[in-house]
């Protein structure tokens, strides 16, 4: 077994555009579930709208990259409003069912051949980050061509630009969430998580607060999708339901009702994924385990599932959470 390359690949997982994108989405989920108590199982749908919104705005409407990103965010706000108006008056578990279904609807809308001209159907969309008229995301890259960094953290100028952009977005996102949650607004949101009726009885418009929380978390989800789209193609195969559960796992790993938890949880989760992928395929190739390489890569998800179960049973508050503040099983 080549431990050198396993270690190298695992370390690479610490800082990748994927990790950044999923950290942003996990922050959105922290807003939804950790702070406002909204059981959103459709975060992949918000990411899809962000990513596709950006790509479609650039490819079909010819908008510059920053306007395309705003378009994607705008799309997620509309989606949150449409989702929230009929469902936020209901109990939390209904929202869970509706969100998981609507995320699938979104994905299938992008998959259907009816809109192939705009969505690219199963092939998805690509080539929207570099544009001949100079209005693409990579055209705005301030880094000259070359190789940066050292060891496992070696990046070309394109990846470096994506990482820089992603880190800026993540830092801004973390700061805004922190600023919101320490304010009286955040206090009301946490109160709603505990008991809506009590908050209503104190004269707060609970529906409006829940809607604001849903929209804000949705924008974070969309930003995750956009950061993802700045380095990869968007396709319906990315924004599947299992993506939602990966983000849930990252969130619970770090601690749902915390600010840094979702970020650290995502980094750990994707680093662990990178480690397992490498180790398991090495193990399969070297014949230690009697499985094929394909089976080995599936085994990774089995282990993730087991890990999630152990996490929820033995450390439901996550790494950073206060056990008293939020446990997955109340």
């Amino acid at each position, binding site marked *: 077994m080549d431990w050198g390359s396993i270690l190298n690949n695992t370390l690479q997982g610490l800082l990748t555009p994927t990790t950044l994108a999923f950290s942003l989405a996990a922050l959105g989920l922290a807003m939804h579930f950790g702070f406002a108590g909204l059981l959103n199982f459709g975060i992949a749908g918000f990411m899809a709208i962000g990513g596709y919104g950006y790509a479609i705005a650039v490819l079909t409407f010819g908008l510059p990259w920053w306007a395309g990103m705003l378009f994607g965010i705008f799309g997620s706000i509309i989606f949150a409003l449409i989702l929230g108006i009929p469902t936020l008056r209901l109990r939390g578990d209904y929202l869970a069912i509706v969100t998981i279904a609507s995320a699938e609807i979104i994905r299938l809308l992008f998959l259907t051949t009816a809109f192939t001209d705009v969505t690219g159907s199963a092939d998805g969309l690509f080539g929207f980050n570099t544009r001949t008229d100079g209005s693409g995301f990579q055209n705005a890259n301030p880094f000259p061509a070359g190789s940066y960094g050292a060891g496992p953290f070696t990046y070309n100028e394109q990846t470096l630009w994506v990482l820089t952009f992603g880190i800026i977005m993540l830092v801004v996102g973390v700061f805004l969430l922190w600023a919101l949650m320490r*304010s009286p607004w955040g206090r009301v949101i946490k109160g709603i998580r505990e008991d809506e009726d009590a908050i209503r009885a104190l*004269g707060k418009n609970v529906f409006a607060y829940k809607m604001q929380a849903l929209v804000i978390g949705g924008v974070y989800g969309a930003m995750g999708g956009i950061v993802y789209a700045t380095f990869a193609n968007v396709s319906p195969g990315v924004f599947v339901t299992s993506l939602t559960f990966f983000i849930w796992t990252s969130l619970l790993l770090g601690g749902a009702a915390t600010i840094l938890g979702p970020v650290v949880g995502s980094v750990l989760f994707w680093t662990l994924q990178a480690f397992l992928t490498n180790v398991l395929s090495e193990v399969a190739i070297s014949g230690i385990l009697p499985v094929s390489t394909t089976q080995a890569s599936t085994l990774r998800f089995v282990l993730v599932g087991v890990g999630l179960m152990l996490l929820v049973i033995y450390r439901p508050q996550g790494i950073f959470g206060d056990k008293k503040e939020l446990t997955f099983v109340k």
Partner: protein
Amino acid sequence: MLNNESPQKSTDLHIGAAAPGCKKKDPILVADHIKKTFGGLTAVDVEHLEVPKNAITALIGPNGAGKTTLFNLLTGFDSPDTGTWSLMGNSLSGVPSFKVAQMGQVRTFQLTKALGLLTVLENMKLGAKGQKGESLLSALLPALWRKQDKEIEVKAMELLSRFKLDAKKDDFAASLSGGQRKLLEMARALMTDPVLVMLDEPMAGVNPALTQSLLDHVLDLKKQGMTVLFVEHDMHMVRHIADWVVVMAEGKIVAEGPPDTVMKEQAVIDAYLGSHQDTDLGEVTGRIKIIKDGGQA
């Protein structure tokens, strides 16, 4: 029996005979034709009800009489099939619950709703009205709300020390005992500066010593010019602190009046109190011999 000094009762609250739906001299809450059915069951059917201002009104009645449903209807937590009601002349019909609370009519719940995973102080601060920092945009600018938040904290600490919860301010509300949660819920309701406080079974599950302090707090509300409407099953408490009693049975108001007279009415005894209300439980069941005042068994 509570044999300490009797609190000052408000009397002469009504106009005409003390009958169900009678007019009050100075009503704060007026309700008309409130009807609520759940399928075939008529939960509440109140023709007319006036709650006297700056007095303590008790709402009593057997289980299932519709007291809590009436509470829910009057506070906007549930909507009636028919009916209109108003607080100090402002119509509350169809007004959502949070606006009802903003208008000064605040309630507590039968099953205490302390926000367990918020600290006691955070619970209290949530009660304050008109907080600038509670709007999304100004929440991001602490300069806009920090001063107000400090003022709210001072007010919250005053209330907490009155309710003897100030030492617990940084504890999660979940760590409080049942009785302390009742106190916290009442204190939190007072943070909204209400004019009408509606308490749903404030004494349920509270030990006798704490009952006494809760009673004093309720009486304090009246002293400070608030009006209290409460649901309670403890008849000693009702006699002790209520200025006016409204009796409900099967959704209707069956009697109204000052506590001393209303509890002697045959309709009230039949519907609610039962004929053994003043006799010892042992005597009722016949299982225990009661030692009378003279000392003979």
